[in-house]
């Protein structure tokens, strides 16, 4: 058998690698198609309901965008706090990271959705002068908002590591040069360190966004209304209405998969683009020029000093 494989490998050596991989994918999809057919999914129903479920994509993306925006802000603050010498900042960020990495995302979503209003009510009842009715109301969050907030807090905790590593990857000399020039901390970070850190931070952040798009499905457990229903919620609603849960889930899975493939494609292009400035595409100018440039300098002799 080993001998046969050897001969096969040798004879197929001329076929390009990519073609072989494509062939493997064709076989995989053939199997998938076979399973599909054998499982006897109600494909008519799936075609009928595809559009309805697909309409949830815009909310999936909105929620993910909102979540990643919050996460980026928190990750930046968290990273700066992790490398700071301020004990308050360091302590708070440590707690934040530990809690939001240590508890499940779905639990966090429910806490924000259910516990916050409870706290608001109790505070209002106990201390009505300090905590007004408006304060109490403001803690009663719409399920989509609660879910987005939870996503932001959760992912922010994980992304703090990414941001911290990115900031620390900027050579120490950069910060020293900025310091030596008399820049303030804020100026140094804004103009020198963070712009360079972002080069390192952007690609993994793109990956986090792609992951978050899948996690938006959890928001449906908070009972999102039909107006903001994302893909998984919609799949659940029609699946239950017509007793076609399985078909609905297959559609949802396909949509998430497609979304991921598309965004991964753009993510790769972003990565190559961002690393462009740091990869030398032209050879460095050599040293035959210095003497010419030297002669451009104003004439000099040993002048007054001592």
């Amino acid at each position: 058998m080993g001998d046969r494989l050897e001969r096969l490998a040798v004879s197929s050596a001329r076929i390009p690698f990519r073609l072989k991989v494509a062939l493997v994918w064709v076989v995989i999809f053939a199997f998938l198609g076979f399973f599909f057919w054998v499982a006897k999914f109600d494909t008519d129903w799936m075609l009928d309901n595809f559009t309805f479920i697909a309409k949830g994509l815009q909310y999936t993306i909105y929620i993910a965008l909102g979540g990643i925006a919050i996460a980026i802000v928190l990750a930046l603050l968290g990273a700066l706090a992790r490398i700071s010498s301020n004990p308050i900042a360091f302590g708070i960020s440590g707690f934040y990271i530990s809690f939001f990495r240590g508890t499940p995302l779905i639990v966090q979503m429910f806490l924000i959705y259910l516990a916050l209003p409870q706290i608001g009510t109790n505070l209002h009842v106990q201390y009505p002068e300090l905590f007004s009715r408006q304060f109490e109301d403001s803690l009663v969050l719409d399920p989509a908002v609660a879910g987005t907030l939870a996503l932001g807090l959760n992912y922010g905790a994980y992304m703090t590591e990414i941001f911290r590593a990115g900031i620390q990857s900027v050579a120490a000399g950069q910060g020293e040069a900025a310091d030596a020039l008399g820049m303030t901390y804020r100026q140094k970070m804004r103009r020198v360190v963070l712009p360079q850190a972002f080069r390192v931070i952007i690609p993994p952040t793109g990956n986090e966004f792609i992951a978050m798009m899948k996690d938006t499905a959890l928001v449906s457990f908070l009972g999102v209304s039909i107006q903001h229903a994302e893909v998984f919620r919609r799949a659940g609603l029609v699946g239950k209405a017509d007793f076609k849960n399985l078909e609905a889930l297959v559609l949802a899975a396909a949509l998430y998969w497609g979304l991921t493939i598309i965004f991964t494609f753009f993510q790769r292009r972003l990565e190559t683009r961002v690393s462009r400035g740091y990869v030398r595409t032209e050879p460095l100018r050599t040293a035959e020029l210095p003497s010419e440039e030297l002669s451009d300098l104003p004439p000099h002799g040993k002048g007054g000093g001592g």
Partner: protein
Amino acid sequence: MRKSSAVLSALAVIVLGIAGCGSDDSSSGGQAASGTVCADTNASGDLLADICDAGEIRVSTDPAYPPQSSLNKDTGDYEGFDIDVATEIADRLGVDISWETPSWDVLTAGSWNGRWDMSVGSMTPTNDRQKVLDFTQPYYYTPAVVVVNEANTSVQDLTTDLDGASIGVCSACTYEQFLNKDLDIKGYSFDYVIDDADVHGYDTDTTALQDLALGDGTRLDAVITSLTTAQGFIDSGKPVKIVGDPVFYEPLSAAFDKSSPMDDTSLVDAVDGIVGDMHQDGTLTELSKKWYDGTDLTVQQ
């Protein structure tokens, strides 16, 4: 950096936009039609007054329950018996209706925090729930039936054949409490014929029914659910069947949050009165016959 701040602001706007969309479109509070509760009431400072002023009542529903409530994807509206009953109640109150869709356990736990005003969701007023919710008189009664896989032949006598079997029910439902023999509803008593059931809780009945349809004893031996849900499932062509007589009948009422920020007493009374009227003038019977295949479930058995 400026470009990044612009991106961040744009994203913040999106988040706030979603938040803004959260509040449902409230209709203008116009004058309620005469003969309606809002036109005639002199309530003030409480939940009923608030609803009348807003011209809208927010009702919760769980659209996973045909024919009680499900989503019509073509129209984007909810439809079902519960939907129609709630709409009629809103009409008689003299307000418009808007829908929220919380999960069932959030609903039955009370503490709605003012997110919605009323639940018309085929909820049984058990004693436990009455601690946190206020109920109207029942608007209908559902028989709870035992459902088994089509291929099953072993379950004939419900008082003996299901003892120790693995039975699927929806969590936090009366069917689960029935199996756990702690179904307490004031004024009703139940005959717990099933002993030592191996209870499997699901998020909704239909998920349990799906597991049952996989095969006799594959995941479940039986499911207990409402007759209407079971019938709907069977009608859609799934391989399950109802066995024996209903194991109990449960009353189902509209519910309100006891811990609502505004006093709900007058609202509960008003809706209770409306439900009574709807029984008397035959509206409920008509709706029941429409959704439940000509059966009138609104009469106590």
